[in-house]
């Protein structure tokens, strides 16, 4: 435990110093690493903790981003006020769409989440009610204002914003992991029938993991929208959902440090191998297969402790 705290402090100090010594480009790269981490953590609740296949996670991210974009450009609501609202909107959306389908198992749930992701993307493309701006998306989103002259504008400010949110999320998620809810989730993942037999309300807990995961993804959408100042449907494709899926599984399903490492691998790989140009994604595919060959449990698999250890 003491060792963990030391590692944590070292990482935190390194993260604080990093933006002042690195170039703006690198700071932006690490900002997106943060966004991917947040998305990975949000999917980790669904996929890692409860073991539900969600290949439409980009839909929740999109709902958060578009909530921010539309409410900010139409009604002028400040970004920071929209931060919780985006999360709540994405969570409400998850509750609405997942309630009727939560009883589906394994691959059937998987295709329904894919379908949900596609429905959201196509709906955004088709510009319902003139709200989403079709393929062009919504642009002219404001920067977050902290109050008075404090505006988050520079790369460094955004960098700190996202990593503070990531830090707070990790704190909450670690506590959640060790809570009664977290243990019940893991129990459902290991054996649903046994979980139900021991009195766990499987249906509500599954729904809860979707709601929490979607809420966190919605918050990531809010930060993304204000950073990019525009959102368009092409950021929320099936391919993106697959990337988030890979973040969780590459890192180690159910493991929070693993998810961070997975997010790092997925977001930094294309940047590091930029020199390979068009062969880059080719190697990316090979790397994914190789990873699963050498470390099928992920880069940093979750350690089991206490009563749950096998």
């Amino acid at each position, binding site marked *: 435990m003491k060792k963990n705290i030391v590692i944590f402090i070292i990482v935190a100090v390194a993260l604080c110093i990093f933006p002042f010594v690195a170039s703006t480009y690198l700071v932006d790269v690490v900002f997106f690493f943060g966004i991917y981490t947040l998305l990975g953590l949000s999917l980790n609740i669904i996929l890692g903790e409860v073991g539900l296949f969600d290949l439409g996670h980009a839909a929740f991210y999109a709902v958060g981003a578009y909530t921010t974009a539309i409410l900010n450009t139409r009604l002028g609501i400040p970004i920071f006020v929209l931060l919780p609202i985006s999360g709540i909107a994405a969570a409400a959306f998850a509750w609405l769409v997942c309630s009727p389908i939560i009883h589906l198992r394994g691959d059937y749930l*998987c295709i329904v989440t894919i379908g949900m992701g596609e429905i959201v993307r*196509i709906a955004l493309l*088709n510009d319902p009610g003139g709200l989403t701006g079709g393929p062009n998306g919504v642009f002219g989103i404001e920067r977050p204002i902290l109050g008075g002259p404090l505006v988050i504008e520079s790369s460094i400010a955004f960098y700190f914003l996202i990593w503070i949110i990531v830090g707070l999320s990790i704190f909450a998620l670690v506590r959640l992991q060790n809570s009664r809810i977290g243990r019940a989730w893991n129990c459902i993942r290991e054996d649903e029938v046994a979980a139900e037999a021991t009195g766990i309300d499987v249906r509500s807990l599954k729904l809860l993991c979707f709601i929490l995961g979607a809420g966190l993804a919605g918050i990531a959408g809010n930060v993304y929208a204000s950073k990019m100042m525009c959102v368009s449907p092409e950021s929320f494709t099936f391919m993106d959902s697959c990337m988030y899926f890979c973040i969780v*599984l590459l890192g180690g*399903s159910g493991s929070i440090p693993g998810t961070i490492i997975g997010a790092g691998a997925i977001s930094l790989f294309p940047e590091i191998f930029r020199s390979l140009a068009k062969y880059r*994604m080719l190697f990316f595919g*090979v790397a994914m297969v190789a990873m699963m060959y050498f470390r*099928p449990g992920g880069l940093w698999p979750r350690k089991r402790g206490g009563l749950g250890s096998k």
Partner: protein
Amino acid sequence: MLTFVQQLINGLTIGSFYALIALGYSLVYGIMKLINFAHGDLFALGCYVGYTLLVWVSASLTSLFGIWGCLAVGMIVAAIGVGGAGILMERVAYRPIYPAGRLPAVVSALGVSIFLENFIMVVWGPRYLAYHSSFIPAGYWQIGSFRITVLQVVILVLSFILMGVLYYIIEKTTFGAAIRAAAFDRDTAKLMGIDINKIIFFVFSVGPALGGATGVMVGMYYRQISFTMGWVYGLRAFTATIMGGIGNIPGAMIGGIILGILEMLGAGYISAAWKDVFVFVVLIAVLIFRPTGLIGEKKAEKV
């Protein structure tokens, strides 16, 4: 009524594409319990192999076999090539990873899919390519006020023959019984002396081969091909598989055809832009009422 019949014919054609691709998903899923995400890209590979064959060696082929022979050769070569790619994929990317569990296998499948898509892009280039119209049988029949093209008839006949042959193999032969047994319970089937490796070889060669042949048919039907089409068709066919009940061979065929017809009716009556939404909404509705697909078997919960 006119639109309805016309869209029905178009939907049936597209539906038979989806059905043929869906069979590949279903065959592999039945034995491996793995969604082969790379299957759509194998199909795209078939499109491009057929394209290359018809462009590069068309002159000598046409003089030897005529247009129909040329197309047949294109389809057979694409099927064999893609079938080979399927077996290679199983050996390299699935077999070593499979013992580790289902989740790593899914990531591996996604990795193969990304690899294949980019492989096609690197080899054939990122631009759209088009099948040359001189290889495509022209002509149509005008029946009343709707029309059916020669190509549609060829595609329909061919797909139903392929599906029929596969159905016969799976349902009526001894080898088919072994496949069904392995799909039902792999370990017990092994104990009964069924050679699982032979069955894995079969599903990973026949599934992709059907996909490859479908690729050439889609190329002839739409003419335009792109390296991203694997995702698009793969997703639709996968939807069809689930709609029929995954791992279920007749289910995949019926699911594919229903999906094609729904898509075309959606495009005709609602709007082309919303047709995919229509398809997915129907799929979700089907799954809410029949959680294991249209003809998914009732499986008792294993405790």
